[in-house]
Each structure stands twice: as C-alpha cells, then as structure tokens.
C-alpha cells in the first residue's frame, strides 16, 4: 500500500504533499488545543508504539485457509482504530503521519510520495473509518459490527484512492488498478476489521478511560452525512472513467426487445444531460454532469426535508 518514489510524477506528488501538509498542521493544532490538555508529548510516545505494533505480523491464512498463502502475512494499520479511540480523525492523521515518516527511512514508502501515502492511509483512512463507524453507530448497529465496517472501509477506500492516483500518474490503468488493489485491500480489510474489534474490546477492558466513549454520540449527523457525500462524490467522479462505453445490460435488453416503442415513448422526453454528459465537453462534461446532478439531488433532499418539517 505504500507508494514508493518514482511512481508518481513530481508535480502530482507536490499536490498530494500540499493537501497532506494542510491536514498535518490542523492535526497538530488538534493535539495541542482540542484535547483537554496539551497531548503532543503523549502522541509522540504513542506514535513510537504504533510504529512498533505495525511490525507485528499476522499470518494471511488465518483469514483465508488457502495453502498458497503459506508465507504471506499482513499487519494492522490502525487508522480507524486510533480515530475511534480518540473520537477524532485528527488523531489518525497525526499518528499515521509520524509512523509513515519513520517508515520511509526503512524504505516503506517514498519521500516524494509520502504526501500521497499520508493522504490515503492517514486522511482518507482516518476520516472515512471514523465517520462510517459513527454513521453505523447512529443507525444503532451493534458496536462490533460498526467497528468492523469502519475498519474495513478505512482499508478499501484508500485502496480505491491509490488506484485513482496511480491512474492519474499514468502508472496503472484504472479498472485493473481498482480490481487489484480493491481485492487485495478488501481481503486485508477483513483482517483489519477483525483485529480492530479484538483490540478495541481488549483496550476498553484494560483502560476504559482512554476511550472517549460518549464523544461518539455528540458527533452531528451533518458531519457524517458530509463524509458520506464526499465518498459518493469521489466515486461518482471516478465512475465515468470506470464505466464501459457499451450500453449496460438493461439498456441493451430494452433496445433489443422494445426498440420501436422505447423510441416513441422516451423520445419526447429530452434529458438534460444525454448519456450522463454535457455535449461537447468530453470526459470533463461527464464529471460536470455528475457533480451537477449530485448537487441537484442534495438540494431536492434538503427541500423535501424542509417541507416535511413544516408539515
């Protein structure tokens, strides 16, 4: 999962670094001010522990009993776990940054690519892991299930982001990348999820005071919804590049079976964005159409919610 140097062109690496620096600055401020006291020395020590516990190997065939996986092992990342324990995704950003920086000295992940690695594992992993955990908790799912789902998403979403970044860099095609990284991290995510459940359960027994228990219920639904919207928007923007140019199954069937009727029925209705795109703008138009459509759906939602409140 760690991108090495040379995979991403310098310009793009700089952009990821810039995003990472903004988040790192905010996370340092969080550790200093938003916790009850100045937690910076404590987080420094904890980062050392996080680095060391990432060297604990877990045999892959504990998850999937396939003999082929004889010597394969993986380790926990812990982005979702730390975000959930400290009831803040900033904890994950801070700890993952420190761990990744030291890991790059060991050759795990590049120096120019570190920005992208922090973005994937720290920011996307931490934020998405945390807010999906909160989201599941709000749906009053059992805590263990919510933990598992949060941790799994904190592995699979960075993998998708990674595939997208490598595609932007011209290093790996998007579809194969999503399939390859998605499968790999999807399986590793099951392990991460199981480990998160076990570790969280053990910590809450040993030191219940570490875990900011009631902070979870205070997170506003709006924040969770915003995190969800970011994910869906991200996936939606990636979708046109992933989608095939051939008509999908339903369209295909419809055009074969009711070719004439469909034209006479549908033709009078002119869609705003035919073929999910704005004519004359190419792929950009497709992305724009999706963003506009997405915004429209949210506006309609909000409008409907308002109306229902009044009634």
């Amino acid at each position, binding site marked *: 999962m760690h991108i090495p140097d040379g995979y991403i062109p310098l310009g793009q690496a700089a952009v990821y670094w810039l995003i990472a620096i903004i988040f790192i600055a905010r996370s340092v401020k969080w550790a200093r001010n938003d916790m009850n006291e100045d937690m910076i020395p404590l987080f420094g020590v904890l980062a050392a522990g996080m680095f060391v516990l990432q060297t604990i190997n877990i045999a892959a065939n504990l998850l999937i009993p396939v003999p082929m996986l004889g010597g394969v092992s993986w380790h926990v990342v812990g982005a979702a776990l730390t975000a959930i324990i400290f009831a803040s995704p900033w904890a994950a950003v801070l700890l993952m940054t420190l761990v990744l920086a030291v890991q790059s000295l060991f050759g795990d992940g590049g120096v120019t690519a570190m920005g992208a690695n922090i973005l994937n594992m720290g920011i996307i992993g931490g934020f998405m892991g945390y807010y999906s955990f909160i989201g599941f908790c709000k749906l009053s799912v059992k805590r263990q299930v919510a933990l598992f789902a949060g941790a799994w998403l904190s592995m699979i979403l960075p993998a998708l982001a990674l595939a997208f970044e490598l595609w932007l860099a011209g290093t790996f095609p998007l579809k194969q990348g999503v399939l390859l990284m998605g499968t790999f991290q999807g399986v590793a995510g099951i392990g991460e999820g199981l480990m998160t459940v*076990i570790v969280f359960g053990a910590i809450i027994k040993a030191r219940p005071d570490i875990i900011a228990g009631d902070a979870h219920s205070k997170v506003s639904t709006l924040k969770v919804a915003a995190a969800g919207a970011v994910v869906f928007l991200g996936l939606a923007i990636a979708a046109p590049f992933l989608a095939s140019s051939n008509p999908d199954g339903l369209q295909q069937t419809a055009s074969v079976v009711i070719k004439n009727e469909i034209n006479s029925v549908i033709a009078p209705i002119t869609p705003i964005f035919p073929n999910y795109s704005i004519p004359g703008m190419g792929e950009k138009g497709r992305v724009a159409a999706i963003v506009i459509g997405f915004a429209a759906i949210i506006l309609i939602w909000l409008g409907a919610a308002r109306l229902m409140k009044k009634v």
Partner: protein
Amino acid sequence: MHISLTELERETYKKSPVHRIDGRIKILITLAIIVYAVALPRMDALNFLKLGMLEVYIITLMLLARLELSYIALRFAIALPVGFGIAAFQPFLKQPFIANFTVLYTLPMGFEITREGMLFGAVILAKFLVCISAVILLSSTTSMSELVSSARRMGLPKELALLFTMMVRYLFVFWNMLGRIRTAQKTRCFDIWNKKVPRRWTLEQVGYTISSMFVRSYEQGERTYQSMLCRGYSADAHVYVGRKNIGLSDAFVLSFTMVIIGAAQILV
C-alpha cells in the same frame, strides 16, 4: 517487512567520513538526489546513464561509510520487491501517455509486450532503485535522533520536532518491549503459522499483543508527560538544539554532490 531497529542503529554508530558529515547536509543530499531522480522524464533511455552515475556515487559513499555488505544486501532485498510490483506490469500495459506502441511479443489471451512499456517499467524501477539507495545511505549513516535534531536546525516546526523527538526516543524502548513479548510467546510455543490450534484463538492472541502494545505505549506517554510537567514543561517549551556550524568539508560534500547531479544532467 522491516529490518530490525537494532541492526539499523548498529550501522549508524560506526565511525567514518560519511558518518561525520553534518546531518543537514546528508538530508539535503538525499532530497536532491531523490527529487532529481523522480523529476527525470519518464520515457528516455538516457535516464539509465544519469541514474547509473548517481547510483555509483551513492554506492561509493556506502563503501566509504564502511557499511556491512550483508546489511546493505539485506536492505535492498527487503526494499526491492515493493518497487518491483507495479514496474513488472508495465510491459503488458498500454500507458495512456504513449501514442505509438511497438509490439515485441504477442502472448496468448491478448497480452502484448511492448518496447515502450518495457522502457517505462525499467525507468520506474531505476528511479526507485536510486531513491531507495539514497534513503538507505541516509538512514544507515545518520542516527534517528541526529536526523530529528538536523531537521529541527533546518526549521522543522517546534510541535513536529517535539513529536518526532519523543517518537524516536521511545522507538527502541517499544521495540525491545515487543521483543520481550515475542520471546515470552516463543517460550510457550506460540506460532502464528501453527495449524493445530483454532484460528480464532491465534487471531485473538495477536490482537491481545497489539492492544497490549497500544495500552503500554499510551501509559508510557502519560508517565512521560506527567514527569515533563513536573519538570516545568508547558506548551511554550522548546526542545533545545545546540548550534552546530557547517564545516568546510560538509560544504565540499554538498557542492560535490550538486556537481555530480549537474554532470549527470549536462554530460549525458
């Protein structure tokens, strides 16, 4: 996945001309080499000569630093598979930024090996090799505490400096702590590959190890923080870093490296 911290530290405490170079200079050299290597055009056969020059220079420095050969080989052996992963796919892919492909071999199932793909894959691998060599040189000749203090002298914000100082201070403590846990588990015949125990039980044991490491490091953090408070720590506190002047030989090494990079760019 990792080389052990103790092996790394053993190499950094050796005495050699390379070890004596100021940490700031070594950081600058490493960054210059990495940025130069990454910035090279992605489709150019001349890259190999340029990167080859840099690699020879780095390996010369490694030999001057009297790093153990088996240690260097081990570090390369650990790092290389990572870089090899995606580079190995390149000959079979159709890179979006290349207009025309020359097909060298056609394989069954529609796979084609192209000359451009092979070139691009080789360039990625060469860049990766030079970057990883530079990182190995830096991390094996500079101790982590010196890296942090050098970064501090170069203007790392004081909060981050404190975070890294604390982290580096306790890395070895926790590394040994994990070592003790592992020894204790080994004496009780615990093995993650053991198939004779239920898988769920093994997973739980690993999970308990992880949570034990987490809680112990958190508690160490609490103790350290409280003892720092007792000694007058507050949010305005600075980590003291003594002044250190850059000597003539340090300046020479820096300019010599720049000359090497310049030569690679101009001559080739």
